[in-house]
C-alpha cells in the first residue's frame, strides 16, 4: 500500500543501486562557461529555473493579472502559454522580451539581472550560470515544448470552432453575458436553474429546456427571450437589449455558438513525462544543531534520461524548528524532532525524512509478544527519536477521555464511581466495547461523517428556506446514523452515497413523489433512513457544477484537496489542470432537476403529495479519462461513471479511500492525524508514521471495512491511553504520540456537557440518551450557525476542508463560559441545584462534602482530593446560602481547564 506515498524514495532507490544510469551533470556546472554549446530545454531547464527564481510565483508574474503586463502560469506547467508570453513583445517597455538578434539585450535578461529597472530586483548576476542558461536558450532559438500529435477529446472538442468564431464570442458575446445575464444566471446564481457560465450549461439549459440550439437561432430559447416578443419570456426582464446585441446573439447561435477553449493545459499533453525524482541521501539523520548535509536531486525522464537537477529544484522544510534548507539544497539542523524536506521539480514532488533525536536514550524497550501493533509501531518511532513515552493515564482520566472521543458525552457520576470501584483487569477493554454499543457512539461518529460529507441545512440553496434545508440535512444525518449504529462496513455506507439514486429504475414519477412526501409528513412519517441510498450528497445546490462535485468528492472520500489545480498547477502536489479537468468529467452527467421550495415542502408536511427534485444521471458519451494518475479508464455511454469510481476506491491498493478514513478516525482520538491535516494527502505532506498508517489501513481492509474494529484497535492501545503529563524526554513532542496532548472539547460536546453537568439527578439519563435533544444528535443541524456553535468552532460544512472545525481556544469562548446568558441560564435553571434548594427549604440535611463530590463528578468526572474538598467547603461556608455556594462551585468548575480540555 505504502508504495504510493513512500515508493518514490524506497522502492526506486534499490533500482538505482542495481544499475546506476549515466547522470547528466547539473545545469549550474554545464552552463558555468559562457562558451558552452549545450542547448537548454524549455521544460527541463527554463521553466524550472523561472520557478526556482520565483518568477512564476503568485506575487510576481504568476499572478493572474501578471506583473507589468507579463504573465507566466502560476507554478509553471502551462508550457504553451509561458512560451508565448516569453516570446511576445513587451507592451509596457521598449524592446523585445526575447531578442533573437541581440540575445544579450533581451528584456528578460536585462530585467532579471537588474541592468535595467526591475520591480522584482536582481534575480541572478550577470555572468552567472542562470544568465548563461537563459542566454543559450535564446541563442538557440528560444524553442518551447514541441507539439506532438496526441488525440484528446479535449483538443478535438476545442478545434470545432474557428478562430474567428472564438474571437466573435470573446469580443461580442461574453461581455454581453457578463453585463446583462450573469447577475441572475452566472456565478452562484441560477434563476430558473439556468446558468450561462459555460457552453455545456447553456446546452443543458434550465427549467424551460436548453437555452440554445447551436445553428438554429429560431429554435433557441435564448434568442426568443432577448427579442421580448412573448410576454412570458423576456430577458433581461428589465430592459431589452439593443438591436445590434440581439443580432450578435443570433449570428453567434447561427455560427454554432462557438465558445472560448477552456484553459485546459493542453501543454500537459505535449509535455515530456517525468517518471520520478531520486534523491541522495534518502534520509537525513542529524545529531547536533549546526550539522549540515547537501541534498542532490536526480530527475528520471520517460525517455531514459537521468539528470542532476539540484540547482533547478525548489526546496522547502516542513518544520523550520527542526531543519532549514537553502536554495542550493544544503540542509542545516536546528532543533530536535522529525520532519521532511520537500523537493519540487517539474511536476515531481519528493519528501526526504529528516530526524534528530531528542535524547541519546534510544534503548529499545522489550515488548511482550501480544503487544498491540499500534504500540509496537509507535514505540519503534519513539525509540529512533530517543523519546520515552509517558505512563498510562489513571482510570478517571481514561474514562472521561474515551467517553468524549467515542460517544461525545461525559461519563455520568454513577458511571465514574462504578468504574473506579471495578477491580477487574479488563475493565478498560469492557468499557470500550460498552461505549461502542451505545447510541451516542453512532450519534457522535455520524456527526463526524456529516462533517466530512458536508451535510448542511444551508447547502440546499441560498433562497431555500432553512426549514427545507433542515428537512434534507436531518434525513442525511438519520440515513448515516442507521448505518453507523448497525456498523455497516464503511465501503457499503459510502457506496450508498456515491451511487445514490433518487428515483428507482422502475419507479414512476408519481410513486417517487409519494415516497419522498411520505418522509416529511407530520403524521406517522415513513423512515427515510430505510432508503437504500442517500442522494442528497449530489443534489445539494452547493455542488451543482461538475467541478464542485469533483472537489467535494475528493475531499469527502479521498482526503485530498484538488482546488489549486482548478486554476493552476498544484504547488505541493503533482496535479495539473488537465488532471483536474479529467476528474471533473466523471461528474458532468450528474444533474439535480427541480428545486424544493418552502410552500411545497410545507404542503408535504401537512400530508400532501408533492413533486420532489431528483438526481438525473445522464447517458453521456463514451469517454476515456485519466483517473487521478491511477491509470486511464473507459466509460461507455450509459454507464454510471460513479460506479467506476466506487470500484476503483474499493481496490485493495487504492492510495486514498480506506487510508483517508483510517487517518480521520485516528485524528478523532488524538490531537492530529498521522497525516496532518487529515485532508491533505500529498507527497509533500507525508505521514508522521507511515508503517502505523499502513498497518491500520491493512487491518481495516482485512476486517472488511469494520469501523468498530478500527475504533477498538486504537482505543485499546497504550498509545491512546497515555497520560498528558510529560517526562524528561517528551515535553516537546507533539507529533509522535509519546503522550496525550490536551485538546479543547468540541463545540457539540461542550454544549451537551454543560447541560448534563447541571441536570437534575433523575434527568441525567434522559439528557444523555435523548439524541433528538443532543447537539451531537438531531440538534447538530438545527444548531448549525448559532452563537454557541460558532464560538466553539462547529464547522458550517460550507467549504471542503477539515480545517473548518476549529478547536483553538479563543477569547470569545472564555467570555462565553464565564458569562454568556446560556451558561448563566444553565446555572440558574439547574435541576440539580433546584433540588438542593428544595431540600434546604424542606429542612432536609444536605451533606456539604457530598455536594462537593457531586460537582466534581458532574464536571471533571473524578472525585476531588482532600485539599479540594477543604477549599470548596470553605467557600460554601463563606457565602450567604448553600445554593449560592454550589452555584459558584459549579460555575468555577465549568471554567477550569480540566473541564474545557479533553486530557
Amino acid at each position, binding site marked *: 500500500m505504502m508504495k504510493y506515498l513512500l515508493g518514490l524514495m524506497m522502492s526506486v532507490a534499490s533500482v538505482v543501486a542495481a544499475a546506476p544510469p549515466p547522470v547528466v551533470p547539473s545545469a549550474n556546472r554545464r552552463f558555468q562557461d559562457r562558451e558552452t554549446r549545450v542547448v537548454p530545454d524549455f521544460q527541463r531547464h527554463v521553466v524550472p529555473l523561472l520557478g526556482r527564481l520565483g518568477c512564476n510565483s*503568485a*506575487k510576481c508574474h504568476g499572478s493572474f493579472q501578471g506583473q507589468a503586463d507579463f504573465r507566466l502560469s502560476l507554478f509553471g506547467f502551462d508550457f504553451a502559454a509561458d512560451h508565448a508570453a516569453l516570446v511576445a513583445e513587451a507592451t509596457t517597455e521598449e524592446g523585445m522580451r526575447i531578442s533573437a538578434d541581440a540575445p544579450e539585450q533581451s528584456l528578460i535578461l536585462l530585467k532579471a539581472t537588474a541592468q535595467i529597472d526591475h520591480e522584482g530586483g536582481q534575480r541572478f548576476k550577470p555572468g552567472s550560470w542562470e544568465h548563461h542558461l537563459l542566454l543559450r536558450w535564446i541563442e538557440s532559438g528560444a524553442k518551447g515544448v514541441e507539439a506532438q500529435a496526441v488525440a484528446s477529446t479535449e483538443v478535438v472538442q476545442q478545434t470545432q470552432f474557428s478562430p474567428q468564431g472564438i474571437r466573435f464570442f470573446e469580443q461580442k458575446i461574453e461581455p454581453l453575458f457578463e*453585463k446583462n445575464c*450573469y*447577475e441572475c444566471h*452566472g*456565478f*452562484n*446564481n441560477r434563476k430558473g436553474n439556468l446558468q450561462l457560465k459555460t457552453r455545456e450549461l447553456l446546452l443543458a439549459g434550465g427549467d424551460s429546456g436548453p437555452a440554445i440550439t447551436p445553428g438554429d437561432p429560431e429554435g433557441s430559447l435564448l434568442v426568443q427571450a432577448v427579442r421580448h416578443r412573448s410576454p412570458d419570456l423576456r430577458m433581461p426582464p*428589465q*430592459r431589452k437589449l439593443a438591436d445590434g446585441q440581439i443580432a450578435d446573439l443570433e449570428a453567434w447561435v447561427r455560427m454554432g455558438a462557438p465558445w472560448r477553449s477552456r484553459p485546459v493545459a493542453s501543454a500537459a499533453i505535449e509535455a515530456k513525462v517525468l517518471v520520478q525524482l531520486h534523491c541522495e541521501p534518502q534520509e537525513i539523520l542529524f545529531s547536533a544543531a549546526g550539522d549540515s548535509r547537501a541534498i542532490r536531486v536526480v530527475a528520471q525522464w520517460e525517455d531514459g534520461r537521468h539528470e542532476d537537477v539540484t540547482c533547478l529544484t525548489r526546496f522547502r522544510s516542513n518544520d523550520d524548528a527542526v531543519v532549514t534548507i537553502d536554495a542550493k539544497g544544503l540542509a542545516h539542523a536546528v532543533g530536535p524532532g522529525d520532519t521532511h524536506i520537500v523537493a519540487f521539480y517539474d511536476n515531481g514532488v519528493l519528501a526526504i525524512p529528516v530526524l534528530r533525536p531528542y535524547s541519546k536514550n534510544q534503548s529499545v524497550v522489550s515488548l511482550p509478544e501480544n503487544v498491540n501493533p499500534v504500540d509496537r509501531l509507535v514505540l519503534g518511532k519513539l525509540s529512533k527519536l530517543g523519546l520515552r513515552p509517558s505512563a498510562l493515564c489513571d482510570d478517571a482520566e481514561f474514562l472521561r477521555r474515551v467517553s468524549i472521543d467515542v460517544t461525545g458525552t461525559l461519563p455520568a457520576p454513577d458511571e465514574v464511581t462504578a468504574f473506579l470501584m471495578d477491580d477487574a483487569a479488563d475493565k478498560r477493554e469492557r468499557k470500550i466495547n460498552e461505549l461502542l454499543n451505545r447510541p451516542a457512539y453512532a450519534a457522535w461518529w455520524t456527526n463526524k461523517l456529516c462533517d466530512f460529507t458536508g451535510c448542511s441545512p444551508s447547502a440546499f440553496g*441560498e433562497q431555500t428556506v432553512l426549514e427545507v434545508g433542515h428537512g434534507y440535512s436531518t434525513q442525511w444525518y438519520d440515513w448515516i446514523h442507521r448505518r453507523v449504529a448497525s456498523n455497516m462496513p464503511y465501503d457499503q455506507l459510502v457506496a450508498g452515497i456515491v451511487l445514490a439514486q433518487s428515483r428507482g429504475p422502475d419507479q414512476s414519477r408519481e410513486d417517487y413523489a409519494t415516497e419522498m412526501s411520505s418522509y416529511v409528513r407530520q403524521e406517522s412519517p415513513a423512515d427515510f433512513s430505510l432508503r437504500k441510498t442517500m442522494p442528497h450528497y449530489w443534489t445539494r445546490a*452547493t455542488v451543482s457544477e461538475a467541478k464542485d462535485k469533483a*472537489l467535494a468528492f475528493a475531499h469527502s472520500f479521498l482526503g485530498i*484537496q484538488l*482546488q*489549486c489545480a482548478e486554476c493552476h498547477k498544484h504547488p505541493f502536489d503533482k496535479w495539473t489542470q488537465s488532471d483536474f479537468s479529467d476528474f471533473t468529467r466523471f461528474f458532468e452527467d450528474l444533474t439535480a432537476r427541480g428545486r424544493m421550495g418552502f410552500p411545497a415542502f410545507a404542503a408535504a408536511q401537512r400530508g400532501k403529495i408533492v413533486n420532489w427534485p431528483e438526481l438525473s444521471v445522464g447517458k453521456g458519451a463514451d469517454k476515456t479519462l485519466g483517473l487521478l494518475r491511477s491509470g486511464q479508464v473507459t466509460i461507455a455511454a450509459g454507464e454510471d461513471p460513479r460506479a467506476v469510481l466506487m470500484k476503483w476506491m474499493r481496490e485493495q491498493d487504492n492510495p486514498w479511500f480506506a487510508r483517508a478514513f483510517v487517518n480521520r478516525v485516528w485524528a478523532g482520538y488524538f490531537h492530529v492525524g498521522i497525516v496532518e*491535516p487529515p485532508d*491533505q494527502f500529498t507527497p509533500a505532506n507525508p505521514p508522521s508514521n507511515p508503517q502505523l498508517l499502513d498497518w491500520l489501513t491493512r487491518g481495516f481492509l482485512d476486517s472488511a471495512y469494520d469501523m468498530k474494529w478500527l475504533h477498538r484497535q486504537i482505543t485499546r492501545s497504550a498509545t491512546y491511553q497515555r497520560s*498528558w503529563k*510529560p517526562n524528561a524526554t517528551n515535553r516537546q513532542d507533539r507529533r509522535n504520540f509519546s503522550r496525550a*496532548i*490536551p*485538546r479543547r472539547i468540541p463545540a457539540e460536546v461542550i454544549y451537551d456537557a454543560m447541560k448534563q453537568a447541571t441536570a437534575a439527578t433523575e434527568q441525567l439519563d434522559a439528557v444523555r440518551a435523548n439524541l433528538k435533544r443532543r447537539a451531537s444528535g438531531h440538534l447538530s443541524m438545527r444548531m448549525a450557525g448559532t*452563537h454557541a456553535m*460558532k*464560538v466553539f*468552532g462547529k464547522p458550517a460544512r*460550507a*467549504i*471542503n*476542508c477539515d*480545517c473548518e472545525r*476549529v478547536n*483553538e*481556544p*479563543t*477569547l*470569545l*469562548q*472564555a*467570555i*462565553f463560559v*464565564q*458569562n*454568556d446568558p446560556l451558561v*448563566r441560564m444553565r446555572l*440558574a435553571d439547574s435541576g440539580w441545584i433546584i433540588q438542593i434548594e428544595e431540600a434546604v427549604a424542606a429542612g432536609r440535611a444536605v451533606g456539604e462534602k457530598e455536594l462537593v463530590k457531586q460537582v466534581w463528578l458532574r464536571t471533571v468526572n473524578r472525585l476531588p482530593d482532600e485539599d479540594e474538598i477543604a*477549599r470548596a467547603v470553605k*467557600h460554601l461556608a463563606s*457565602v450567604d446560602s448553600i445554593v449560592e455556594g454550589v452555584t*459558584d462551585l459549579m*460555575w*468555577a*468548575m465549568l*471554567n*477550569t*481547564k480540566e473541564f*474545557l*480540555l479533553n486530557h
Partner: protein
Amino acid sequence: MGSPLTRRQWLSVGALGAGLTLSQYLRLQAAAPGKPVLRSAIFIFLEGGPSHQDTFDLKPDAPAAVRGEFNPIRTNVSGVQICEHLPMLAQRADKYAILRGVSHNLADHGIGKKYLLTGNKPSQTVSYPEYGSIVSRQFPSAADLPTYVSIDESFVGPGYLGSQYSPLTAEKPRHGFPYKVRGVSLEEGLTVAKFTRQKKLLDDLDVAFRGFDDLDDQVRGLDRFSEQAYDIISSRRTRLAFDLSQEKRSEIDRFGKHEFGQTLLLAARLIEAGVHFVTVRLRPAEFDFDTHAENFPKLRTLLPPLDRGFAGLLDRLQDRGRLDSTAIFMTGEFGRTPTVNGGGGRDHWARAMCALMAGGAIQGGQVVGESDSQAAEPAGQAYSPDDLAASFFHNLGIDPRTEFQTNVGRPIMLVRDGTPIAPLFSV
C-alpha cells in the same frame, strides 16, 4: 514599558485573539513613539441595497420613470448635489467622499452581502473574512477592551482567519434600556463583586494543570483568554464604553432618537474608548432598504434617521478630534433598478450603486466616479467592491495586497482583485 512585565500584563497583551507575541507587540508599539500607530474604523452596512439614484446619485434630467419622486438639493460643496431628504449631510458634504459608478454583478442579497462585507467575490473554496476580523488580526487592542465589536450580529464572520478573530457582538442600543453585550453585560443581579468572587474561586480550584501552564498551546491559550475575559467583563472602562446613559441629552439628540443614530453614537463611544473596529449592521426588520414596493414612502422614513445619524457621527468625531484617525465606510450590497416598477418600488441592481467614505486620509468634498444618465451603468471608470475594500484598507494603513495563509497553506491576498482608488486620497 521599561519595567519588567508581570504575568498578568503578559497575559493581557493583545485582545480578541491576538496572535502577537510579546516582542511583536512591543515592536508594534515602538514603531512610532508618541504617535498613534493604529487607525480605528467604523463600517456601516445598509442592509437591503439602498437606492443609489434616490440618495447620493440623483438623475434629475432622466425620464420620470427613472428619476423618481425626489429632488436634488445643493450641498456645501459646489457642484455636488444629493437627495432633498438628506439636508444635514448636504451641509457636511465637505467631510466625506461620494463614490458613484460602483458596479458588480451579484444582485442577490446573500452573495451580494458577502461580496461587499469582504471585498472578495464569494467562493466555494475559501471563506473570506469580514473587514473587522482583518483589523482584529492586524491591530489587536492591548487592554481590557475588545478589538472588534459588531452591532448587531455579524453575517460573514472571520472566515479563513479563524474564530479567534470573531467580533464581540453587541445588541443595538434601545432608548431607555440598559446596554447589552452578549457575554459581557452582567445580568440577573450579577454584580462585579460577585463575579470577582467566582473568578477568585476559579483561580483557587483550577489546579489540574498547575506547573504545566506552558505545556501546550491549548493550556496556555485557555489561561490567557480566561484572564482577558475576566478583565473585559469586569472592566469599568468597557462597561462605560457601552453605556449610553453616560451621554448628555444633547449628544443623544444630535444622533437622533432612532436606533440607527443611537447605534452610531455607541460606535463613536467605543472608538473613543479604544475599540479599533466597529461594524454597524442593523437587521433588515429594523432598517430595511430592500424597497421592492413603495420605494419613495419607505425612503421618506429611512432617510431622515440616516441623515441625522451619519451627520451626528461626523460632527462628534470631528469635535473630539477623532475624524482624522477613524476610517469610515458606508455601503449596501447593491443599488436598485433604474426604472420604478409597477408597485412604485425598485428592484435589485448591482450594475450601479454608490458608497460613502470619510475620515482618515479620505479627501472629503468630492464625488469619485459617475454613473450614466439612467443611473444604470458606470460612465467611464467603474469601481468594484474589491476597489472599495482596497481603499478602505489603504485608509487604515493596511496593504490590501497583504498575504495570509489559509489552513490548507494556500497563500491568499487580502483583496485579490482590487486597488485603492487614488482620487479618494489626493489632496
